[in-house]
């Protein structure tokens, strides 16, 4: 795949995908807009700038693998995969509908999706399995796993973090979407996960902290995560500070829009705001 390295261009793509996300959720009248909008800048930079992949050959053996552990954020990943040509854009119309391809949560039956997720806390273990397989096969592809901040309350995340740390899985990169909100409420008011960076460090991970909406910072973080001199034989976690619902004023930082669709009036307003972004 042709890589893009112009930050303005990447930001533009991300913003246009924000509209696709809101459209999908509005059309289905269900789905998870908040965590999709917080993650879309990171995912756009990952897919257009960093990932070795080929939309025409989704099972290419040497591809980098991306595992969306927070498998509810399908609007974001489907929007990107459709834009890249993994499947026809018309499929987006069937999102969450019966007999359609695009399931509510990620499914490996969809080209470009590497894990059937939906139950939080499992993506890192699964990604470790892929990373172990790469090691056994002497392949140098990378495994990227995106997890939510609420998701890190699951004990299994830390079992898996320990496994990757102990086994020095330096082909593993975790993207932590620190959008500060989980399903019901704010993460820090539900069960604090801080000091989150220190926890990963204690599990023997290389930690990078960035603003998850700053394209240049995302690019640099992904470069550093791929730089052996920087990660020094350790798995790497990129803790991306983000805003849940980013780009739509009434969704931003609002727990209500974790898993709720906008009504028609809200949809109209959201699209107006997103159109202004460019």
């Amino acid at each position, binding site marked *: 795949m042709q890589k893009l390295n112009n930050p303005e261009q990447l930001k533009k793509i991300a913003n246009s995908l924000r509209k696709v996300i809101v459209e999908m959720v509005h059309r289905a009248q269900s789905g998870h807009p908040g965590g999709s909008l917080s993650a879309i800048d990171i995912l756009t930079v990952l897919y257009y700038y960093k990932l070795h992949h080929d939309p025409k050959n989704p099972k290419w053996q040497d591809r980098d693998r991306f595992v969306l552990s927070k498998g509810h954020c399908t609007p974001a990943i489907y929007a990107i995969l459709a834009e890249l040509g993994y499947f026809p854009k018309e499929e987006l119309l069937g999102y969450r509908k019966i007999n359609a391809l695009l399931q509510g949560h990620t499914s*490996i039956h969809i080209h470009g999706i*590497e*894990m*059937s997720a*939906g*139950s939080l*806390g*499992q993506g890192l*273990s*699964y*990604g*470790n*399995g*892929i*990373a*172990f*397989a*790469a090691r*056994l*096969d002497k392949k140098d592809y990378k495994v990227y796993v995106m997890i939510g901040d609420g998701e890190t309350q699951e*004990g*299994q995340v830390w*079992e*898996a973090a*320990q*496994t990757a740390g102990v*086994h020095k899985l330096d082909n593993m990169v975790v993207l932590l979407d620190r959008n500060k909100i989980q399903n019901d409420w704010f993460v820090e008011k539900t069960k604090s996960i801080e000091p989150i960076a220190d926890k990963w460090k204690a599990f023997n991970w290389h930690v990078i902290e960035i603003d998850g909406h700053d394209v240049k910072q995302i690019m640099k973080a992904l470069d550093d995560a791929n730089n052996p001199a920087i990660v020094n034989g350790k798995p790497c976690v990129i803790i991306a500070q983000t805003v849940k619902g980013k780009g739509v004023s009434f969704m931003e930082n609002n727990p209500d829009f974790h898993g709720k669709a906008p009504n028609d009036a809200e949809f109209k307003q959201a699209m107006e705001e997103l159109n202004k972004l460019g």
Partner: protein
Amino acid sequence: MPEMIATRDGFGKALLNLGRENKLVVNLEADLGKSTKSILFAKEFPDRTINFGISEQDMITTAAGLAYSGKIPFASTFAIFTERAFEQIRNSVARVNLNVKIVGSHSGLLTGDDGDSAQCIEDLSVYRSLPNMVVLSPADAVETEKATYAMAEHVGPMYLRTGREKIPVLFDANYKFELGKGVLLRDGKDVTLFATGPLVSIALDAAKLLEQEKIYARVINIHTIKPIDKDLIIKAATETKAIVTAEDHNTIGGLGSAVSEVLTEYALAPLERVGVKDRFGESGKPAELYKKYGLTAEEIVKHAKKAIARKRV
């Protein structure tokens, strides 16, 4: 006296052989390799072994990632601790139809002294309820060994149940294991005893006791709990018209239920179930526990007579 070997030893031997033959086989363990016998593989193939320490959920889900990447992961621990990862097995293995092999040792009351926290009496039931899952419960060490080879051949999620205590060896090296097929061990016309795991040799003893009373029992070994050998059950129900099941497992949800489902749908015949009657176990020697909880040849005889008495004429 027949030779006595634990089924877990059959598994350990087979896994080691598989390791030698098939580079795709990866061994995942959770600090119980000495008990499950995966340690034999681990010693010879440390590079293809991942020890998770005590983290079963991580182990099972990592196995899913390995299977997704083309490996054949065997993840083993005590049967009861595989259940720690039940939801992972449900969502990341069975639902996705990934080629993960789960092996649960120390099943049933046969586990003995460790007591009821370790005696898994519901694994057949819970794993049988998962779509895509194949569930195996072999009767001796030889059958376990062959079943383990079959697991590496068959593509898809599978659960294998093994046991801690030595039990009689019933099969010789020429025995051919056929997935999904019950094994006729003794023919008879009056009643059929379907048994699984360690209860198979006990059912054979029961058939001998019945013969002394001129009751001729057919004995069938059911090593594949799912998919169950429907045709063989229908045939037995039609021909002997009375059925007994015997298992070291709760009478709810395991072999007894699987057979009962076939009988009620296809060939009604009276059924009596020998097993752990919906209660938890306790510490004790396996033989003592089998006696106290009714997993004996005498108990099978009693149930057989009851089933025969209920026959429709």
